[in-house]
């Protein structure tokens, strides 16, 4: 297979999306801290390259599932930021009419079949979606995002086992952000990497730097092509870091400032920007223009989200 290379427009687009997602999450955090949003939320700051790299490499007929930390996945798939924010505000304009909140959104038009508050709960749904595709000979791949913590659930095992024996077209994307809430991955896994689980299912598996959007995009494009050609299940591990706390008001006492600094140096946005400087001579002027555009898109989204309420 010829390796798939990302085009520079795609890279630029990825950078724009990632920047937008980060700004979206930061703004949400402010709104939460101001007490303007009820309930809880889980931000994906630091993991933007996972969402964007994967979603950019998928096709319209692919079906997506996500977890509690799904804003980035939704936005990268093309969700309207106003409606995502509206949902988080509990507005009737939200993707679930304000019933779902931050953890529960679905967008049928984008084949985004749902995020979910039960850890690992969407993994079997993706297998079921893939089984449907196989039985009904429908095109596309089922893709599910989940975290390193989801590996602990029995349903992860059952799902991978059945996906493997039935050879259904499904891509399991594990964002290993090193923590499940306060629990370090190394504390709850006897093996070093999520991909080390794949041999138990005789499953194709890949591990890649999840903070490198190009690497993610290219690998996913290749995997996706392979699945589309010959349906099967693949496990993909994206190494990344949950820069924010787990949810609102987590002071992260369970990890060191050194570790945080180490990962900050691997920030996916900064790295993508450096690549853009090489590829398309991205400069401060374009960056400033982007910031401005993002600012106004965010304002519009927020205005839309806050205009109507129950």
């Amino acid at each position, binding site marked *: 297979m010829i390796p798939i290379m990302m085009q520079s427009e795609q890279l630029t687009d990825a950078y724009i999306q990632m920047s937008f997602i980060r700004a979206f999450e930061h703004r949400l955090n402010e709104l939460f801290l101001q007490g303007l949003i009820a309930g809880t939320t889980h931000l994906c700051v630091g993991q933007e390259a996972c969402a964007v790299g994967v979603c950019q490499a998928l096709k319209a007929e692919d079906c997506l599932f996500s977890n509690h930390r799904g804003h980035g996945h939704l936005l990268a798939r093309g969700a309207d930021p106003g409606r995502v924010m509206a949902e988080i505000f509990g507005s009737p304009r939200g993707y679930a009419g304000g*019933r779902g909140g931050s953890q529960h959104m679905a967008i049928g038009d984008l084949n985004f079949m*749902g995020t979910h508050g039960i850890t690992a709960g969407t993994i079997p*749904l993706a*297998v*079921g979606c893939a*089984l449907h595709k196989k*039985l009904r000979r429908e095109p596309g791949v089922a893709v599910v995002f989940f975290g390193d913590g989801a590996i602990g659930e029995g349903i992860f095992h*059952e*799902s991978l086992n059945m996906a493997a024996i039935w050879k259904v077209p499904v891509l399991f994307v594990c964002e290993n952000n090193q923590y499940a809430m306060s629990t370090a991955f190394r504390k709850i896994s006897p093996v070093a990497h999520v991909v080390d689980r794949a041999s138990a299912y005789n499953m194709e598996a890949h591990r890649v730097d999840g903070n490198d959007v190009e690497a993610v995009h290219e690998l996913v494009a290749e995997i996706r092509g392979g699945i589309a050609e010959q349906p099967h299940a693949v496990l993909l591990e994206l190494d990344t870091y949950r820069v924010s706390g787990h949810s609102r008001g987590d002071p992260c006492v369970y990890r060191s400032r050194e570790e945080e600094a180490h990962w900050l140096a691997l920030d996916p946005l900064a790295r993508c920007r450096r690549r853009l400087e090489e590829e398309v001579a991205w400069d401060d002027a374009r960056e400033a223009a982007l910031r401005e555009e993002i600012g106004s898109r965010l304002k519009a989204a927020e205005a839309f989200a806050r205009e109507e309420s129950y």
Partner: protein
Amino acid sequence: MRELSMSAAIREALAQILQERPEAFLIGEDIGVYGGAFKTTSGFVDQFGSDRVIDTPISEAGFVSIAAGAALMGSHPIVEIMFMDFLALAFDGIINVAVKWREIYGPEYAMPMIVRAPAGAGRSYGPTHSQSFEGLLQNVPRLTICCPSNPADAASLLLGAMALREPVIFIEHKALYARKGMVPEILTPGAIGRAGIVRRGTDLTIVAYGRQVPIALQAAEQLAAEGIDCEVIDLRTVKPLDTEAIISSIQRTGRGMSLEESPIIGGIGSEIAAVIMEHAFDYLEAPFARLGAAEQAIPCNPKLEEQCFPTIATVAAKARDLVAY
């Protein structure tokens, strides 16, 4: 009309569904060449192929949620849980997924699926193979639960459950599989949520479902000889409950009792009692009574097992008490 056992009637309804509905498939443990633990799918894998009759590993939680995922895409899976006791492993998929997607996201996100579960006692299968969870599951918002008592109803409710396009728990009492009954030549979908009055009477209403229906009918026969004229209601679906049928019967008889396969505390009878209280209070001449499974693990020994459930004798005794109240 012809005579069929309940398992034969179920088998025929399933075959009809597979024939008529390309989006339907069966999924569960040993339902292929083995034909299911109770043989309700025997021969299907040869007839319909292994894409429509899918054998799974022993992974109840997994394949219930996988079915939900397929349902979300437009399939209409029919899941077989070999014994209902094992559904305890898959409650998350029912409670947090199958009934919720539609509630949260709207009707285009419905997960139409039927979960068939052989259940109940009477065959000495012991404490992990004799339970029936309708009492417990009725507390799950908007979950539909069918409990047929005879071959004709089993077939028509199964087709009705398909027509509903919602998650349905379909409870098949193991002790009824071999029981025969008349079944129409052409199977048609029955209404979900509609009880049937299977015996008319004026003195007392017995509300039952599943294998408690024949017990109620036999008790009613015995009581008739004593001059107590019982009406017997077969619920058919325990959720939604046909409150209208129950209330109007109680309004006529003024007295009633429930028979159930679940434990009494928090069971179907408690719900019925509460509904009657709310809607037929002024018609009641005696307190509504509940009979059901004993508050314990169901024992293997046939005599001990029988003592855990309503019998013709205990039903008749309770009926006499109520009439004398």
